[in-house]
């Protein structure tokens, strides 16, 4: 037993074809938190989730979910998890209501409780009016919501969401986000895989960046961003002709390499002491009589973190 809702240590998985999908993956998720698994296509996110949800066996290392070993006590694990896979896993012939009722029965809810729960969830996910229609006639977003509802029948201790908002419109996406937040507030641990950096940033307290079956970085979104180096100062000029002169000034003020983007007339440089650097930059520009349209301090985006981390790995491999 550990104090982690999800714990993976050196998990390895090699598929029959010879692909090594997980190559010593480590993961520790504290109870009641939302943890993001972020990674490009083929990184091993789905494989990781399937192993933790007892659908796949692992070849090396070990993994525990809700305190139980996934290999030795899969039945106990299953009683405590919910799974929303990458592809909708509902019966397309049955209605939404019949689906939820069936899954409720398979969770061993009594008939009446299963029915009540199905109605509650349909209401919760905005599917009440569609409840009696076959799921096969639902739009992609509706099916996704039904899928989410099916994963939450028991409000599990640990919920796995594999790219839950892929294919949803912005409204559907924010509904899912709200649901995930509500679940986390109620104490459910959520492990979420995503390719959307924004999604991980918004939802997850901690993020593991996965690439080629390993975690290459881990931390809060802020930590990951500051791990990239420092915050940055962005300056947008009115006059593109002033770019070289301004770049020199900025370089002098920050002591760092300046990135120039002529298209947007933007200069960008990392800074260490945020406020001091900002004052320095403003003074220097003012002294030289260069007109700035916008000056801002900002944290690097997760996109920058992500590209930076995976680019490093690509260089190593090359």
């Amino acid at each position: 037993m550990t104090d982690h809702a999800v714990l993976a240590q050196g998990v390895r998985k090699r598929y029959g074809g010879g692909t090594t999908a997980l190559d010593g993956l480590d993961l520790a998720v504290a109870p009641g938190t939302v943890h993001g698994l972020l990674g490009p296509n083929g990184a091993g996110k789905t494989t990781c989730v399937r192993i933790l949800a007892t659908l796949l066996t692992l070849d090396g290392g070990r993994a525990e979910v809700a305190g139980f070993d996934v290999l030795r006590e899969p039945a106990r694990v299953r009683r405590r998890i919910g799974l929303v896979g990458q592809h909708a896993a509902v019966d397309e012939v049955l209605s939404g209501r019949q689906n939820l009722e069936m899954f409720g029965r398979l969770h061993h809810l009594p008939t009446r409780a299963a029915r009540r729960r199905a109605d509650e969830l349909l209401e919760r996910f905005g599917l009440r009016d569609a409840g009696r229609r076959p799921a096969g006639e639902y739009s992609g977003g509706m099916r996704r919501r039904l899928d989410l509802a099916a994963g939450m029948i028991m409000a599990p201790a640990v919920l796995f969401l594999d790219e839950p908002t892929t294919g949803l419109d912005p409204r559907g996406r924010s509904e899912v986000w709200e649901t995930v937040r509500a679940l986390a507030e109620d104490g459910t641990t959520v492990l979420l895989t995503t390719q959307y950096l924004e999604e991980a940033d918004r939802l997850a307290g901690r993020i593991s960046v996965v690439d080629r079956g390993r975690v290459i970085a881990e931390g809060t979104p802020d930590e990951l961003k500051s791990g990239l180096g420092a915050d940055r100062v962005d300056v947008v000029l009115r006059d593109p002709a002033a770019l070289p002169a301004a770049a020199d000034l900025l370089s002098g003020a920050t002591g760092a390499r300046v990135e120039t983007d002529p298209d947007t007339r933007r200069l960008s440089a990392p800074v260490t002491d945020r406020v001091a650097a900002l004052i320095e930059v403003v003074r220097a520009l003012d002294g030289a009589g260069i007109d700035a349209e916008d000056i801002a301090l900002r944290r690097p985006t997760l996109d920058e973190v992500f590209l930076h981390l995976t680019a490093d790995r690509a260089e190593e491999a090359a």
Partner: protein
Amino acid sequence: MTSTSLVSPAEPVESTGAPARLRWALADGWTLTRRALAHWARRPEQVVMGLLFPVMLVLMFGYLFGGQMAVPGGGSYREFLMPGMFAMTMVFGVETTFAAVATDASRSITDRFRSLPMASSAVVAGRGAADMLHSVLALTVMAVTGLAVGWRWHEGAGRALAAAGLLLLLRFALLWLGVYLGLVARSPELLVAVQVLVWPIGFLSNAFVDPATMPGWLGAIAEWNPLSATIGATRELFGTPGWDGGSWAAEHAVPMAVLWPLLLAAVFFPLSVRRYRRLSR
């Protein structure tokens, strides 16, 4: 947004002990049987078509080809044909099983089932029970058809019911063949292959003609076809006029009609279980 609680409506039920586990296995199986029944309720036209297809075959073989068919001993061809058609109806059931299993296996819903705290036997047990119910219904429709075209049982209701039992035993064995093939194929696209392969199996038996009229080696295959055992046994139990077996296999049709299905089940049941487990590799 409504304020419906997302909190668990019940604590996880721990089913410890063999009796509790068996009870849940039955309950889970029944839930999935009801799933299959609900499918049929939503697509009644498919069920009706499936039931009418063998009826159409009876009319086709009985009336279109029947005039040309000579029955050993000079009985009515339609009476000779009906036991064969009963068995063929059981064989067609493989298609239903295959299609359902392969469709599920190709979809993520299998993942969902496997991540639930349900009995792992339930998916197949539920499927099996539904398919057996379907076959009972199909057999009833065929019996009514048979009575309408002149087929009778001549040896009493008890032996007729025993014959029905043998037919359903064959269906039970074929259930595992269907499950196995469905898990191997993992895609309903191969249904056509199954639908086509059913025919040589049917024609290479005593369903439509007496194997004695076939060329030597084909006759031998037809003689030993498991289907022939069931058909021969049911002809014997119905007392079909003109049917007197002749070969060793035909003389021992009833024990063979018990042994063959048991053997088939003994092969394909463990193979299916292994395939199902292999999904987690």
